[in-house]
C-alpha cells in the first residue's frame, strides 16, 4: 500500500507547488493523475519516487517512509532516458549489475520478449524509434520487479497510433505482473482507458480536486457510450478544477442525466 500523508512541496523561492496531498493507493491499483499545468502532478510523482524530498508530510510504502529512490519503486519518464553508450540489452539490465550474469541475461531476455523487442537486444538506443525506445524504458523499469511503477506522461511525446498501442501494451504488462501503477497524464482518453481511479488535481497550489472511480470492465472499448460518458465526467471535473464553472454546470447536468442509462 502506497500512502501519501499530507504531502506538500514549497520551493526555496516560496512557490508552493503541492499542498496537503492525502492519498492511498492499494497494491495492483491503477491510479491516473490528471490536471492542468502547474498543478504539481510531476512534483508529486517525483516525491513518491524519492527523487525530491517533500517539504511537508511523508510518503509511505507499506508503512515505511520513502525518502530516497526505493528498490520497489520504478519510474518511467516522459523521455525514454536510455543510456546511449549501452546496447538495448545493456539498458534493460542496468538495474541488475550485482546479479549473476546468467540470471541477468535471462531476465533481460524475458523483459525484452515482454515488450516485443527481442530482435533489438544488441542495437544502440539511437537506432530505435520513439515508441521502441519508450518500450525499452518500460522493460528497464520492470526488470527489478517493482511493486510500484510511476509513469510521468510516458506516452505524451508519441504519435496517436503508437500511444494507443503502448497503452494496450502497458495494460497487458500490468495484467501479468500486477504492480501498482501511478500515472501522470494530460490525456483524458488515456486516463479512462487505463485507470481504476482518476485523480483530478487543481493548480496554484497543487491539490487534489476530485477523485473519480472508473470501473468500466476491461478491455475497454474506446467507442462505447460508457467510455464516452466517463470521459465527459473527467472533462467536466477538469473544467471545474480550472474554475471554468459556467461551461461545466451545463455539462455536469447532462452527464448526470445520462449517467443512469449507461452505467
Amino acid at each position, binding site marked *: 500500500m502506497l500512502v501519501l500523508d499530507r504531502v506538500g512541496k514549497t520551493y526555496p523561492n516560496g512557490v508552493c507547488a503541492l499542498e496537503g496531498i492525502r492519498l492511498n493507493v492499494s497494491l495492483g491499483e491503477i491510479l491516473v493523475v490528471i490536471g492542468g499545468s502547474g498543478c504539481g502532478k510531476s512534483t508529486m510523482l517525483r516525491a513518491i*519516487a524519492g*527523487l525530491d524530498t517533500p517539504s511537508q508530510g511523508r510518503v509511505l510504502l507499506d508503512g515505511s517512509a520513502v525518502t*530516497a*529512490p526505493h*528498490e520497489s519503486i*520504478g*519510474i518511467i*519518464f516522459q*523521455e525514454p*532516458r536510455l*543510456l*546511449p*553508450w*549501452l546496447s538495448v540489452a545493456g539498458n534493460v539490465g*542496468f*538495474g541488475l*549489475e550485482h546479479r549473476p550474469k546468467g540470471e541477468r541475461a535471462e531476465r533481460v531476455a524475458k523483459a525484452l520478449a515482454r515488450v516485443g523487442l527481442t530482435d533489438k537486444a544488441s542495437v*544502440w*538506443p*539511437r537506432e530505435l524509434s520513439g515508441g521502441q525506445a519508450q518500450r525499452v524504458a518500460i522493460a528497464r523499469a520492470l526488470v*527489478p520487479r517493482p511493486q510500484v511503477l510511476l509513469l510521468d506522461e510516458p506516452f505524451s511525446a508519441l504519435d496517436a497510433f503508437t500511444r494507443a498501442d503502448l497503452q494496450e501494451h502497458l495494460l497487458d504488462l500490468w495484467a501479468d505482473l500486477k504492480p501498482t501503477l501511478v500515472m501522470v497524464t494530460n490525456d483524458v482518453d488515456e486516463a479512462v482507458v487505463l485507470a481504476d481511479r482518476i485523480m483530478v488535481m487543481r493548480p496554484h497550489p497543487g491539490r487534489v480536486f476530485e477523485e473519480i472511480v472508473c470501473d468500466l470492465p476491461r478491455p475497454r472499448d474506446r467507442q462505447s457510450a460508457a467510455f464516452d460518458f466517463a470521459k465527459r465526467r473527467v472533462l467536466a471535473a477538469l473544467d471545474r478544477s480550472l474554475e471554468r464553472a459556467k461551461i461545466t454546470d451545463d455539462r455536469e447536468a447532462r452527464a448526470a442525466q445520462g449517467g443512469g442509462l449507461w452505467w
Partner: protein
Amino acid sequence: MTATLEQAALEKPAGRGFAHFVRPVLGLLLPVVLAAGWEIAVSVGWSNGRLVPPPSVIFKTFSELAQSGELQTHALATLWRVAAGFVFGVAAGTIVGAIAGYSALTQRLVDPTLQALRSIPSIAWVPLFILWFGIFETSKIVLIAVGVFFPVYLGVMGAVMSVDRKIVEVGRVFRLSGPAMVRRILLPAVMPAYVISLRAGLGLGWMFVVAAEFLGASTGLGFLLIDGQQLGKPAQIVAAIVAFAILGKTTDFIIATISAPFLRWEDRFAR
C-alpha cells in the same frame, strides 16, 4: 531479368570497393601534386631549389639520417619527452578538470587563475622553467605537461559540467553509489569530449616540445631543426618537419584508434 539482377549484384561490391579505395587516397592528392610540381620545377631549372629543396633531396637527407641512426635517436628523444609530458599533463588536467567541473566552489576558486595562465605563450615559460628545473629533461617535460594540461582541463571540466541531469537521475533511480555513478554514468558520458581534449592536448604537446628543444637541447627533432638552420641545411630542416608530421599524425591516430571502440555508440553526423 535474372541477368540484370546478377549483373547488379556483381557490380555493386566492385563499386563499393572502388569508393573504399579512393576515399583515403583523396587526402594525398594535394601534397603529391604539389611535391611533384616542385620536383619538376627544380629538375627543369626554373628554380635552383637551394632554399626549398625538392622532394628527392629531402627524401635523400631523410634516408641518410635514418641510415646513420641519427633520425631514430632524435625522434626517440622527442617522443619520450612528449610521452612523459603528456602523461603528467593529462593526469593533472583530468583531476583538476573533474574537480572543477563537479564543484562550483572549486571552479570559482581556480578557474580564473588557470584561464589567465592558459593565455601565456609557451615560449614565455622557458626562461623561468630553466631557472627552476635546470636545462636538462625536467624543464622540457614540465613545459610540455603545461601545454597538455590546459586543453585536457578545459575539456574535462566542460564535459563534467554538461552531463545531462536527466541521465544522472536514471542513476539515482537505480540507487547507484557515488563510485558506481562515476563509473557507470559520468565516465561514459564524458568520454567523447575527453577523447577530443586528449587529442587537442597531444597536439599542443607536439608544439611545446619544439619550444622546449629550441632552447638548450643536444638531442631531439627540435635540435635537428636548429642544427639545420645554423649549418645551412634546409633539407635537414624539412626532413625534421616531415618527421614531426609523421609522429604527430601517428600518435593522434593511435589515440583515435584506441578510443574508437568506446565511442561506437555516438550518434554522429559523419561516420
